[in-house]
């Protein structure tokens, strides 16, 4: 058996989701290999080489890998897939975009959002917004998986560096072309890996309220900001702040849900948090059924009061 992890990175650093994916890979095999494809990505490759359990890094450096376009990347992975029993990537938008394409080119199944590894061919993953856990045996020779990052601890740096091998780049298929990227500016920690998350829902009422009320709380707690779908749809915050079944999955130490009713689609994204606090003026809101601490109150009173109390 031999496991290859497809790294998600920004050419300089590996993303935290990649570290979790490597940790998952190490539950399948005691040593694993990592593919770093990018443009001027040697720093990311060096970082991967220094992780405990990584035995080799394969680095493909070319300008047409800069924007992680699925067609070129999938072709590269498939061209270098011989000999591997497992191909893994994080269940981020990067991995979800790439891995089904890789699997279909290999004519094998792909398993999404793996949250536990029972055996080299047997995996657990959530379905139906996390309301059921499915245990599946992969019958194909090559197992292609995306890994739910919050379900695995991050791989850690070791004492030695594995060799970095340079892979020849594949052709630029030119099926798609990068045009532009609009990053949602925020000086807050990254939502997917933050220790504390403060999320707001429809009850915030406006973008101005959302920021005026929740930013001081997030600052006080060193938290990332998240939101329900209703808050995103209403334009209070950027799309990639959405927590839930069809948004981001988070599992922080502390999740504070402000004016979020607790629809199953939202719970799917946050119910693995260690401690959940809910602030909602409706005593019957479903969010209270999963909250460790529930406060029935108007957010416009309770949140500023909470910010003050935390300062004391």
């Amino acid at each position, binding site marked *: 058996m031999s496991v290859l992890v497809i790294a998600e990175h920004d050419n300089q650093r590996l993303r935290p989701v990649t570290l979790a994916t490597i940790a998952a890979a190490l539950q399948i095999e005691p040593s694993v290999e990592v593919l770093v494809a990018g443009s001027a990505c040697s720093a990311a490759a060096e970082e991967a080489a220094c992780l405990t359990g990584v035995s080799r890094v394969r680095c493909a450096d070319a300008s047409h890998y800069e924007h992680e*376009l699925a067609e070129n990347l999938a072709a590269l992975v498939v061209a270098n897939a011989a000999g591997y029993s497992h191909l893994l990537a994080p269940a981020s*938008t990067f991995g979800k975009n790439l891995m089904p394409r890789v699997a279909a080119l290999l004519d094998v199944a792909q398993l999404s*959002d793996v949250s536990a590894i029972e055996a080299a061919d047997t995996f657990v993953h959530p379905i139906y917004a996390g309301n059921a*856990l499915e245990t599946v045996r992969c019958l194909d020779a090559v197992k292609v998986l995306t890994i739910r990052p919050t379900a695995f601890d991050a791989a850690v740096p070791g004492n030695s560096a594995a060799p970095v091998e340079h892979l020849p780049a594949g052709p630029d298929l030119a099926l798609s072309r990068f045009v532009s990227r609009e990053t949602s500016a925020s000086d807050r920690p990254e939502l997917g890996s933050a220790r504390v998350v403060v999320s707001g829902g429809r009850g915030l009422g406006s973008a101005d309220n959302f920021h005026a009320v929740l930013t001081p709380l997030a600052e006080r707690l060193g938290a990332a900001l998240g939101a329900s779908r209703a808050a995103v749809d209403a334009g209070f915050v950027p799309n990639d702040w959405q927590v839930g079944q069809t948004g981001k999955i988070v599992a922080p130490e502390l999740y504070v849900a402000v004016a979020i009713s607790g629809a199953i689609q939202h719970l799917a994204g946050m119910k693995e948090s260690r401690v959940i606090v809910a602030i909602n003026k409706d005593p019957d809101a479903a969010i209270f059924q999963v909250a460790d601490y529930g406060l029935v109150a108007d957010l416009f009173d309770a949140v500023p009061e909470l910010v003050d109390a935390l300062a004391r």
Partner: protein
Amino acid sequence: MKVMVPVKRVVDYNVKIRVRPDESGVELDGVKMSMNPFDEIAVEEAIRLREAGLASEVVAVSCGPEPCQETLRTALALGADRALLVETAQTLQPLAVARLLAAVCERESPGLVICGKQAIDDDANQTGQMLAARMGWAQATFASKLVLGDGCAEVTREVDGGLETISVQLPAVITTDLRLNEPRYATLPNIMKARKKPLDRVTPEELAVDVSPRLQVLRVSEPPKRRAGERVPDVATLVERLRNQAKVI
């Protein structure tokens, strides 16, 4: 240009599903089924393209058992021109669906396929990407904006960290995200009209596609339940609990 929209029949998003006590799967008997919400968005986008004169025909395709024709009728009521049911009683996994859809693409030659990004039952988020791979086409997943150009499409994608715009060569597969559009409702007259629109059937055998599962489901179990905790009377108590009991701040 012909636009193909694959639509899946799934448990309605409002249903709180139950896991069967024998762990053989999720209880589907007597449960309300609907079109996958992301596929409603896909149908809507396709119809808007036709209304804008950018598409000539919208073809809805569903793979699965006989009742999937209800989902196809919904697509027709929303405005699709015709429908195709790939009928099989076999449980279909995303690779099998993608291979069936690829066989349909070979027959239909659409200029664009618009899928949902994710079916809310299996939460797989795979089929569109797999179809694009099987056809050797470009893919643009998680679309929140689509602008058709000459032989290409500019698609804004919802990605971690923000929005990304790419340009894909046509034919291509696009998968919809929540913010692409707000789907219309089917009106009664359109539901009546949909009954007369053509709905063809084909089988996997006729398409020469092997749909045997590649993933063997061993068990479907209930996730660990979270219990409701304490109702705190005020902010001061909340802070005390977070500091001294949960020790999280």
